[in-house]
């Protein structure tokens, strides 16, 4: 006969039991939505840590092919730190990568575990900031060629924003991402992010002839992929040929509307905007980011698509009456 000693998840959610009490002393009560989003963020960090354990990452080519290219076309004050980091990693490939993997696994575990959550979130912001500068060259923002379709402004920056928005704070907020920053400042962050994406979409290089096709299938984008997926990407990229400016302007308008949606006084348009944000994130992820290009064994993270979707979920209005005015939104 099987004797069951299952962990009592219902008690945890209700905050009962001695361990739950001790956990809540160090961690303010969070809404179930915020808790789920933190677990999702922890899962992404764990995934990053696992990806960092791939054989390629332990070779010197990790520094040459993954880190060093981030310096290209960047100003000196960005390129020099990137080149320094690439050199350091190249000379100590095994030790450096082991450390990177352990740090990311620890961040994931730390964010998932309630007693260590604050410390892990703080460390994740520091780590993600370092990766954004030294590993991603600030997402290419200063190269004049940053493209949201391929991951700009960099997934590391989005990890920082996610940690900031999900920092433990008040449990009774208008949406899960307003815990510590508050509704107003969180909305500022959201709007700045999506208006920035709209601006990058309109950069000349991103609406030039074949710009979308090159972003979707150029370079090593399709290397190692299953045939069906490459076929899909090639087919979609051909549809964009000759319509680059129109697509770029339309996308920029959509992105700007998404950036503004969180200021709507009613939940319905907010939800519509956030669903649109999730759709755009999915389109970016599937069409322009190739799921983070994991099929070659060289992916360090799933790229920005999942993080944009996670950030959208941070702004999903808390359950109230169907169309009640939102706290802190425009009247």
């Amino acid at each position, binding site marked *: 006969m099987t004797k069951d000693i299952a962990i*009592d998840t219902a008690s945890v959610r209700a905050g009962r039991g001695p361990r739950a009490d001790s956990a809540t002393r160090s961690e303010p009560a969070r809404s179930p939505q915020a808790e789920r989003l*933190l*677990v999702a963020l922890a899962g992404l960090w764990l995934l990053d840590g696992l990806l960092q354990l791939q*054989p390629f990452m*332990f070779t010197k080519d990790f520094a040459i092919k993954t880190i060093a290219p981030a310096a290209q076309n960047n100003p000196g004050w960005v390129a020099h730190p990137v080149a320094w980091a690439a050199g350091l990693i190249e000379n100590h490939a095994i030790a450096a990568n082991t450390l990177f993997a352990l740090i990311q*696994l620890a961040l994931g575990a730390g964010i998932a575990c309630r007693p260590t959550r604050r410390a892990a979130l703080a460390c994740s912001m520091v780590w993600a900031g370092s990766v954004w500068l030294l590993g991603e060259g600030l997402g290419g923002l200063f190269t004049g060629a940053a493209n949201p379709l391929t991951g700009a402004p960099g997934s590391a920056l989005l990890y920082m924003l996610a940690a900031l928005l999900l920092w433990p704070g008040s449990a009774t907020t208008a949406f899960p991402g307003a815990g510590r920053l508050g509704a107003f400042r969180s909305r500022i962050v959201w709007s700045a992010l999506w208006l920035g994406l709209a601006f990058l979409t309109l950069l000349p290089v991103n609406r030039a002839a074949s710009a979308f096709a090159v972003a979707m299938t150029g370079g090593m984008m399709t290397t190692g992929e299953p045939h069906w997926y490459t076929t899909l990407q090639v087919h979609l990229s051909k549809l964009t040929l000759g319509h680059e400016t129109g697509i770029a302007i339309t996308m920029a308008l959509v992105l700007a509307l998404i950036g503004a949606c969180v200021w709507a006084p009613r939940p319905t348009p907010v939800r519509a905007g956030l669903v649109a944000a999730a759709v755009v994130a999915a389109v970016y992820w599937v069409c322009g980011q190739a799921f983070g290009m994991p099929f070659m064994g060289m992916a360090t993270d799933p790229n920005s698509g999942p993080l944009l979707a996670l950030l959208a979920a941070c702004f999903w209005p808390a359950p109230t009456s169907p169309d009640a005015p939102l706290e802190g939104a425009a009247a």
Partner: protein
Amino acid sequence: MNAPAFLPAIISVLLIFVAGYAGWRLLAAPTLDLRTDFETDTLLLAAGVAGAGLISNWAHTLPRAAWSVIFTVAAGYFAVRAVIARAQVPRRNRLLAHACGSLVLVYMFLAGVAPSTLHGSTAGEYTMAPMPGMYVDTTITYPAIGLVCVAALAFYTASVLSRLSGAPVEGTERRAFAPRSVEACRVVVILALAYGILSKIV
């Protein structure tokens, strides 16, 4: 390409430790009159031994076909048990997780997850990864399924850790047998299986 030799060795040793610990629990729980979940311990025992063989040659035990049959049967068993226990949500979820874990192992055996075929380690070397003919290890079939499994395992690990860090343990009749250690063992096995899949996507 392959990982530095110490990495698969450490992971295999951890898996064997998990298997040994689960086996010891199965033997000791009745003797010590402590409550335990025999299904979980049995699955951890099998997954630990099988998983170690997938990562290191020296830990190889049964043929791949035998392990595939064992975990297919296990997946079916846990799925049926989950249907029977559908009214008890925590129990049902746990059984479904066992079923999914067994299916992941079936995938790993069928897709060709195995220790590296390269002689020596490429770690710390220049490998020219994208160039044909250079340090190409055998790759798993259906890598897209493998990557989905890895993502699912990562997020499931996060949910287990979240639940574990604040969860009281139910039960009043008899003291439970170190239940959190079982959850910790599950986390080790999940992460090791994810590593096993990723190590073959090269």
